[in-house]
């Protein structure tokens, strides 16, 4: 349907943005021909690290008992991850050790997502699969490591053989559990983030370029009006995108907490 509409417009000379446009030209083009250059997206990842560390260290440089605005903001963000994600999912007993990881993940993903909503930067880092894969892979290694540390090699059996299930169904259930826990889980964990960010990015790009084309090049009053509507619509989309950016950071962190909790408590499910 979308492609049909696009095809109609395109026949009038409009070239919609493609996914390749989400990959901006490399800044340091070493090995650029293999797609391995150092691009804007990587700079933004580094920028996000500088921003997060800088903000929190500045906010907590001279902590006061009655916090100022900056300290309050930092502490609210921290206590959101600490209490609403770590404590609620992992429980009072174990959560303290996992606060740093969840905190780091949440703000790393959140800031990189919000880059997509900031003019000039205008690119969510996790719209690139590599970034999402890397982060999901780190989490994958961590929760499997946690499972092995808590339960030894027996962990793999605990993770794939559900207790309290009749024996004859196990040949069916165990492969399913293996696929869902060890193969699909990291894929969905990363692709959920990547796909939502990429889609959001594409929609904003499409709305922007489409509206610009309709207003500047169509030459028809009706289509120019439609272009203005598209701009108004894109503002609504922008706010929807902001919500999704925040939501995806939250979901990514929440799922990490759930995976870790599952690994810690593998013997009672």
């Amino acid at each position, binding site marked *: 349907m979308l*492609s049909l509409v*696009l*095809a109609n417009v*395109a*026949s009038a000379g409009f070239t*919609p943005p*493609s*996914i*390749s446009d*989400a*990959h901006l030209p490399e800044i340091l083009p070493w090995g650029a021909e293999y*797609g*391995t*250059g*150092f*691009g804007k*997206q*990587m700079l933004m*990842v*580094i920028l*996000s*690290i500088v921003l*997060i*560390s800088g903000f*929190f*260290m500045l906010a*907590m440089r001279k*902590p006061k*008992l009655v*916090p100022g605005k900056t*300290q309050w903001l*930092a*502490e609210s963000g*921290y*206590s959101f991850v600490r209490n609403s994600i770590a404590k609620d999912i992992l429980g009072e007993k174990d959560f303290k050790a996992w*606060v*740093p*990881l969840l*905190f*780091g993940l949440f703000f*790393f993903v959140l800031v990189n997502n919000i880059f997509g909503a900031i003019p000039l930067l205008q690119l969510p*880092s996790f*719209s*690139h*699969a*590599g*970034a999402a*894969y*890397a*982060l999901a*892979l*780190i989490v994958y290694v961590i929760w499997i490591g946690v499972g092995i540390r808590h339960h030894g090699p027996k962990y793999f059996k605990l993770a794939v053989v559900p207790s309290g299930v009749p024996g004859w169904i196990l040949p069916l259930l165990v492969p399913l559990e293996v696929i869902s826990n060890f193969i699909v889980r990291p894929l969905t964990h990363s*692709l959920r983030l*990547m*796909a939502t960010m*990429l889609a959001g990015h594409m929609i904003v790009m499409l709305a922007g370029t489409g509206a610009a084309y309709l207003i500047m090049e169509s030459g028809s009053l009706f289509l120019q009006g439609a272009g203005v509507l598209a701009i108004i619509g894109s503002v609504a989309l922008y706010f929807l995108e902001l919500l999704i950016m925040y939501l995806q950071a939250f979901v990514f962190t929440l799922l990490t907490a759930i995976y870790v909790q599952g690994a810690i408590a593998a013997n009672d499910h």
Partner: protein
Amino acid sequence: MISSALILGAAEGANPLVPNPWEMLVVAVGFAVLMFIVIKFIVPALEKSYQDRVEAIEGGLAKAEKAQAEANAMMADYEQQLADARHEANRIREEARTEGAQIVAEAKERAQAEANRITEQAHTQIAADRAQAATQLRTEVGTLATTLAGKIVGESLDDDARSQRVVDRFLADLDKHQNAGVSE
């Protein structure tokens, strides 16, 4: 036409599912650096601030509780002291009353004793005086009678005038004697 271009683009290496290894490396290393900073500096600072606040609040509460307890103890102490003082005052008043009554009783007793003693002494004195007077009278009456008899016998008894004179003389002597006896 455009959909074929999209597919073509994807086939040409823009497949969004194919990662750029450098991106993965940058994200992994970057995240590791971030985690280092988070674990080393950010979370400890935030936890410390959190802990400090908890301690400040709980410390304040504990301090207030302590002050309250102290005030309560002090009040109880004061009340105890007040009750003690009241009790003491009552005791002293009671004691004073008892003592007063005792003093009065003693004084009464002493006065009674004194009166008795004085009465007794007076009685004794009177008895002694009487005894002395009786003894003296007895000896003197004898002496007087003898003297008088001697006088009477020594003089002529038929001469009334003489007799009268003897009696007068006797009486005068008696008076004289009496006076001398008293003055003695």
